[in-house]
């Protein structure tokens, strides 16, 4: 039997497909991009290796690339209460995020949906609250808190965290709210449902993924926050970012434990970057750029 004359070259070459010029180019670009990502992340990986690196290999000149791994730094971290600081960080970030979502969602919706008197001024006030440098806030906060006994309390720090997170949340959520079609809500109103029922049953379900994304960003901001926790916290409420620099002791710096704690603090960040992706650009540009 004759071979069919019209068989394509790709089919006759079996599994080896012909690679087009365009695909070759994109292999090159992909490799360049991977190289860039590697260079950018290399410091993180290098310092990450300090988790298992014995002290002798840390300070070696010339640099030692290979070493006998050790777990001694982990023992130090566990014995010195860092698990507790981890818990404090987590609790504080969770509580403040929960409050932000609770208070912020209706406000963001109101900004997006309704004509308000002084809307621009109010909105700008929210933005300015977010943008103000933390040091400007911490000076009056410190004076107020120390006179009414709120230093080193969960309540005080949660309150302080609301400044940057509630304003951030309202601002970014209202950009998500504006994307919702108003028609659904109007139909529900005409069917005789109350306005608040419409907010709960129609608007909130549509906003669910936006709430999760923005709330997660708030969690990260609270988790990473240093200045407020440093000045307004203390022995009772000590978060991870405040505890880490304390590893710089008078007897020298404990680099190994520092690498472990730093890596621990990276865990929620890693989860967030993979889950949120495009929302991050939107969040970090205050909703100005829709990722």
């Amino acid at each position, binding site marked *: 039997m004759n071979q069919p004359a019209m068989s394509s070259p790709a089919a006759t070459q079996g599994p080896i497909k012909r690679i087009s010029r365009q695909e070759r180019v994109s292999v090159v670009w992909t490799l360049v991009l991977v190289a860039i990502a590697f260079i950018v992340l290399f410091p993180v990986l290098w310092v990450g290796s300090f988790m298992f690196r014995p002290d002798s290999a840390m*300070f070696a000149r010339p640099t030692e690339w290979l070493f006998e791994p050790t777990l001694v730094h982990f023992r130090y971290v566990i014995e010195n209460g860092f698990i507790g600081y981890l818990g404090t960080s987590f609790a504080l970030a969770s509580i403040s995020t929960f409050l932000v979502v609770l208070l912020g969602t*209706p*406000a963001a919706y109101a900004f997006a949906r309704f004509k308000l008197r002084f809307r621009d001024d109010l*909105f700008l006030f929210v933005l300015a609250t977010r943008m103000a440098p933390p040091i400007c806030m911490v000076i009056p906060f410190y004076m107020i808190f120390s006179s009414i006994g709120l230093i080193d309390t969960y309540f005080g720090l949660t309150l302080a965290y609301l400044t940057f997170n509630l304003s951030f949340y309202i601002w970014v959520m209202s950009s998500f709210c504006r994307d919702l079609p108003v028609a659904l809500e*109007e139909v529900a109103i005409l069917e005789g449902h109350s306005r608040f029922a419409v907010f709960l049953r129609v608007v909130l379900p549509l906003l669910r993924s936006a709430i999760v994304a923005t709330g997660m960003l708030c969690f*990260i901001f609270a988790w990473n926050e240093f200045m407020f926790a440093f000045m307004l916290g203390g022995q009772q409420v000590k978060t991870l970012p405040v505890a880490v620099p304390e590893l710089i002791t008078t007897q020298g710096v404990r680099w190994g434990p520092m690498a472990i704690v730093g890596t621990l603090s990276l865990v929620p960040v890693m989860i967030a970057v993979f889950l949120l992706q495009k929302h991050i650009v939107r969040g970090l540009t205050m909703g100005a*750029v829709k990722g």
Partner: protein
Amino acid sequence: MKPLENRWYPYALLAPAFLVLVVVSLVPFLFAMFLSFHQINFGRIGDFAGWANYSKLMQDERTWNSLWVAAKFILIAFPLQFILGLGGALLLNKRVWGRSVILPLLFIPTMMAPIVVGLLWKVMFAGSWGLLSYNIVERFGFLQGSSVFSSPDYALIALALVDVWQWTPFMMLAFFAGLQALPVSPYRAAAVDGATPLQMFIRLTLPLMAPLMVVIGMLRFIDAFKVFDTIYTLTAGGPGTSTEVPSLLAYRMSFEQWRIGESAAFAVLVWIGFFILCSLFYHVAKKKLNAF
């Protein structure tokens, strides 16, 4: 009247959040203003001082130094972030594989705790044994045996480079989002007319991206001005006052020297400056990007 509208309903939705914001934002601001007009000794509020705190602040060389340091910091960091970010965004915009894995990884420097960023670079540039100190700084003879962060000449440059590491990925991904949103038809028309890629970039991409670039640039400028955590961990403002940006100065003034009155005055001025910057950002973003 549209069915959803109502006179009091939106205000009821806003009220809880605004009550909180007034407590956590307006009250501290007004209190800082109150403090700035008083004499304050070791945390105790004394007599009314008029403009004394402000005039002391204006006569202090360190105030002007801090603004100059911030200006230098931004002048080094920002152009690099902008150019590298734009280049990276153009690269991301090519046909590449695995973008959904690489993109999130690139966000890590921007999203990780700034305090950890600081410690990370403290390790990289640790005097004599740090990876970069031993293999680059010493080998090429910039410095011997000490960290770049303790050199009055290099500390600020090194801090700016850390900022570049931290924020270039953000610029890159924001610009990439902008590139993805560009309309296709002008490029088709240009291709039909035989335009080269460089011509398309200069004549189409740059003008179409300009509004976004302005908005991102403003945002980055605002953020760069308030940097604290990384500088606090890496140099704490030193050596001397060579890396003392405004946030560091305010911190040292208030919590190391307890000059609370002056630092409250400083905070009020910075606050007002930021308010102007913010409203500028708001109006530009609203007009140019149709945002908000």
